[in-house]
């Protein structure tokens, strides 16, 4: 079985995001970029599945500019076997990502697709679900535990009310939650080997997939600054302020 993992190049989680002066998006020039942390978890899970003897090959796929090759190399250094980059400088919305992953999956025929539940840049949380919808594959989202059972999977999901276990047939798509695993550090010898692992670059045009989704980013703004808190003298004052100032009760 092959496991396909989608990895996205995003603003590093340590970097404070700044909105561009023209409000067209986040400033990405000359800032540190790295792999979406949820995707690191996805790669880690795929590697563990392979190490447990349940898969033969882990393929890391990214969609984005040429620099996304670095993100794929990071996945290869962690232990993925090969990489595929669908190269485009355009903004790619979740639906387009799902379509492109479907395009790759049709060729590679993986038994599993693992994606992060969301990317920390746009927090969309849609790709896995949309992929499921357009392929008909079962989806196991917000996974915190993945076990092989019979011909399928038993997946524990983190839901509002607690933990939910579901069974899915394969091929399936899994989206990873934070507690699924703790991603490994790349070992030095593997960083050096990663350079020599195959990385195929496909131009977006060659996929024949349209990335038009009918959505357009109109404007990006900084969140409103939070005001300092106050200490109220009594419950009455609290109720009064909640009712008349905050207008929440």
């Amino acid at each position, binding site marked *: 079985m092959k496991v396909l993992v989608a990895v996205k190049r995003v603003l590093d989680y340590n970097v404070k995001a700044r909105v561009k002066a023209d409000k067209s998006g986040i400033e990405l020039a*000359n800032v540190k970029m790295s792999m979406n942390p949820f995707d690191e978890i996805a790669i880690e899970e795929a590697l563990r599945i392979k190490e447990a003897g349940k898969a033969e090959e882990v393929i890391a796929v990214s969609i984005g500019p040429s620099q996304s090759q670095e993100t794929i190399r990071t996945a290869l250094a962690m232990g993925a076997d090969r990489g595929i980059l669908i190269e485009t400088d355009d903004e790619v919305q979740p639906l387009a990502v799902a379509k492109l992953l479907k395009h790759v999956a049709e060729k590679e025929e993986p038994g599993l697709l693992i994606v992060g539940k969301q990317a920390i840049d746009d927090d969309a949380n849609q790709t896995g679900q949309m992929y499921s919808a357009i392929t008909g594959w079962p989806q196991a989202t917000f996974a915190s535990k993945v076990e092989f059972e019979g011909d399928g999977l038993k997946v524990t999901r983190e839901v509002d009310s607690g933990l939910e276990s579901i069974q899915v047939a394969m091929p399936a798509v899994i989206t990873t939650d934070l507690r699924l695993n703790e991603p490994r550090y790349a*070992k*030095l*010898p593997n960083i050096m080997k990663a350079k020599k692992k195959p990385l195929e670059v496909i131009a977006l045009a060659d996929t024949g997939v349209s990335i038009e989704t009918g959505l357009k980013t109109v404007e990006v703004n900084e969140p409103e600054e939070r005001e300092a808190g106050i200490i109220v003298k009594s419950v009455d004052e609290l109720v009064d302020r909640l009712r008349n100032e905050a207008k929440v009760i």
Partner: protein
Amino acid sequence: MTYQAPVREIEFMLNKVVGLDQINSLPGFEEATEDLVGAILEESSKFCGEVLAPLNRVGDVQGSVWSEDGVTTPDGWQDAYQQFCENGWGALSFPTQYGGQGLPMSVSAAVQEMWHASNMSFGLCPLLTQGAVDALHHHASDELKDIYISKMVEGTWTGTMNLTEPQAGTDLAAVRTSAEPDGDHYRIKGQKIYITYGEHDLSENIVHLVLARLPDAPPGVKGISLFVVPKFLVNADGSIGERNDVKCVSIEHKLGINASPTCVMSYGDNDGAIGYLVGKEHHGLMYMFTMMNQARHAVGVEGYAIASGAYQKALQYAKDREQGKTLLGKSEDDQGIINHPDVRRLLMSMRSGIDAMRGLSLECAASFDKAASHPDQTQREFFQRRGELLTPLVKGWSTEFGLALCSSGVQIHGGMGFVEETGAAQYYRDARITTIYEGTTAIQANDLIGRKTARDGGQGMSELIADIRVTIDELGKSNRVELQVIARNLASAVDALEETTQWMLEQENAVLPAAGSVDYLMMGGRTVGGWLMARSALAATGITDDTEFAEAQIALARFFAEHELPIVDAGRQLVIEGGESTVSVPVHML
């Protein structure tokens, strides 16, 4: 906030200023491309920031603890060391035949900065192992190498250097530890002190390299031999055997690096510890010296690494802390003490100083890479001379300056810097050892004026000065005012260094040069640091895609030229005129 390695700055200095392309074009280093080195630095930064840095304070507070059964390292140390080894960080620069990666020393130095900046007490363990491996690799028999080196490269076994004895510190001629031939091995008896990681619970075995005297040894430095003395004897199949007759009888209570156990080692309390001769009899000290350059360079790296950790902490504090109305703050919300000009001065001196020291250290390491691998014999000799000349500057200047900058880090914190809980003081305490071990600053200065300058009649120094003047000419071609300022101050520093070198070479009596040697060393460090900063400014003018970064590099280089290089001029006067008064007051009047 924990430590985050300045990967961008390190990459810029290594790739664009020192020139990684000049190293990865040499045979054996082809793999070290910018891409690969970038990936290595990123992963190292992650590991050091997330695993080693959080243990720095724990290590300081708990310290390593001695008992009859051995030394226990602080909480989390064992796990971190295991991860460190599994991830292969200890093997970076070792030869591939022993399982290392064979990467250049310059790349290794860039990575090691992160170990020491995040947790110097931890970084010392692999540093010592590296020194021991170097010694074995260069001088031991194939038989010994086969038994020990691969395990040490893996980190499964660690290494130590046993030189010092209570009466033999800087003067190793006084070593008394004895070695008696006993069949195919020797029996070692004696006491060694200040043995870093001489005993600990991180690895399954500890490989001690011990200086000792054979019964027929001539007196003094020519009668010292080098032995391998493992904590556990090694069976023929490579497995761990019986406990050897060596033990740690106590550990020191120190000013800093509390987590790094500094051991008093006792050899041969019973039958004599079993040891194996490295190389030839009576050549021990010479063997130690061949790797002295590397070991001293490594401590120089510690000097600026720890200042870099201190800088990050001070910078954060200066942004957050508000005291009084600032002159540079742009609004009411922008009143961190970083906006007081003097705090800015302290931070700039830290930042530009760290960059300059990093530049010097990487330049020195790159020289050794070229000396090891350049196809041309003349070039190899040239770069060996250059590397050896720069080594005492890296060790002597970077540790003294690094220490001063850690003090600035405390100063920026004000009263809170004197309070341990901020962590600013730990950097200052930990840094304090770096000017002492692996040869005190005075020893570095002595090495500089003697072995590295007088011995070759100033050849290495004049080659260096000529290279610096080439850069000054290049700066002069720029129409940017900052580069003109740098050119002017660097030119006057280099003139002062040249004149003082000449004066040094002309002295017949050794007293005055010795009295001025440390000041001379500082002149050298500042000038070469200024040279690297000047080259950094030149390289920055070529950056087109990130003008903010480029302008910052130029401003930092200018700051260094305006604040550090003028001191070189004063150094000339200090060295040439200040010796007489240094030694003229009789001892009984002191």
